[in-house]
């Protein structure tokens, strides 16, 4: 994936999140404060604008720019978390201009670690990590099995989708949803859902389906 592909990923993520903002917000209304879609839409749209203005000419700078944009404009818990994820992912890419499957795997892992360190959640706590963790694992398994970048991102997206659905029966232990205790059970986590969208955007771009 080159710089243009990474820009396309961000645009596609923004498009999907804008399209699904209502759903994300509704999920957040059920177990949070009903702003997740609004937050991310604002954040991603700002990130896309910043990207259009910025001279980000490596995949790494594309991602760190997006990360800065998300931190600057999203607010909420998800802003710093996703912002940090993109920044860490971007940093892990250094200044390579063409990202292969292995490097992208490293970037996804860096994203996971960034969120994990900042938010101090663990898998199973009903958060972003419950979509991102399985995605990173599935990605690496696919690569190890000889899959190319398109196949690996597709595997990651599918694992994220499954992971997101699996947050339904979980009891939230981080973020606003944790205040619900038992009542958080039965609702899918909005952050895990948005993560699945972002990874689906990645798979779409990797498959060359969007621009």
């Amino acid at each position, binding site marked *: 994936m080159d710089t243009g592909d990474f820009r396309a990923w961000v645009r596609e993520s923004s498009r999907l999140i804008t399209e699904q903002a209502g759903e994300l917000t509704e999920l957040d209304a059920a177990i949070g*404060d009903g702003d997740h879609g609004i937050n991310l839409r604002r954040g991603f749209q700002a990130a896309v604008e910043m990207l259009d203005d910025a001279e980000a000419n490596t995949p790494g700078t594309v991602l760190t720019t997006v990360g800065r944009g998300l931190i*600057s*404009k999203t607010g909420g818990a998800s*802003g710093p*978390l996703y912002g940090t994820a993109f920044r860490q992912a971007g940093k892990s890419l250094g200044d390579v201009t063409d990202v292969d499957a292995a490097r992208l795997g490293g970037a996804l892992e860096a994203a996971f670690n960034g969120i994990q360190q900042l938010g101090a959640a663990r898998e199973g706590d009903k958060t972003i990590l419950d979509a991102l963790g399985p995605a990173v694992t599935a990605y690496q398994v696919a690569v190890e099995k000889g899959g190319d970048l398109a196949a690996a991102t597709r595997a990651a997206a599918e694992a994220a989708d499954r992971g997101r659905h699996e947050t339904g029966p979980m009891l939230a232990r981080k973020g*606003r949803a944790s*205040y619900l205790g038992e009542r958080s059970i039965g609702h899918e986590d909005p952050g895990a859902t948005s993560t699945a969208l972002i990874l689906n955007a990645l798979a779409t771009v990797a498959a060359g389906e969007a621009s």
Partner: protein
Amino acid sequence: MKKLINAPDGVLTDALIGFAAAYPDLTVNLEDRYISRGPTAGKVGLVSGGGSGHEPLHGGFVGYGMLDAACPGEIFTSPVPDQLLAATNAVDGGNGVLHIVKNYTGDVLNFQMAAELAGDDGTPVETVLVNDDVAVENSTYTAGRRGTGGTVFVEKIVGAAAERGADLAAAAAVGREVNERSRSFGVALSANVIPATGKPGFELGDTEIELGVGIHGEPGRQRGPITTAREIAGFALDAIHADMPLSGDVMVMVNGLGGTPLIELYVVYAAVAEWLEGHGATITRNLVGNYITSLEMAGCSITVARMTPDLTELWDFPVQTPALRWGR
């Protein structure tokens, strides 16, 4: 949804424009989104912030004897690090800046990032985390207790301490002491409506109330049928008392959540005073009114702080802000 707004996504900007027009003594930075009174040389700067929709908190508490700056996020959404950093720099009087942060994941993370950035720039920042809401039990299994009414006490008392020359460490210590001595419990009779969604944040039956509600409409300990103000106050105070036994001198705030008439808050205050007297505690200071709201939510929260003579003296120190004003 019926609201006195121009457009759902312009509420914060329009409100800041109105705030700026109403309080020309304060500075409203529309670009960076903060309200400030400019730096006071030598004084520790106090910055708070959080999602909007809780007015007068925090912007209404900027002024002499209280905050130096407030950073409003979008409605119910924490502010972003950029604005917190800009406000921190704006009020840095050379002796460091104290961040007063309500304990919500979003607020904590965004303030943390801003503090790191300010630290990188050479500004010492300390943080006081407010987590006074006893509705959240087993807080080790959650994001922790929420910050609610106690924030008003912390901001006022630290504001006085800073005005009187406390250094950064001392101001932070006073803030933490007030937080440790404060407990809150909220009760919702109806839900709020976030302009951006246009729908009630939660559903309550016709005769149902949420006991232990958070200031964003977060769920409480349980739902129950509407009952008397006396029983509701008793439930709240029992919860507080179980967590922090109440005796001696206390300060009390009976706070309206935004949609409750003041006359009802007086009725609740009567019940609170009766309960505390019955438990041998003495109310030495009080606030009754809308200080930390939740948009148009009907209901109230009760905050109690166990006072010391020093804290009372700081409480009595002059304050001159849009929402709290005395002694000068």
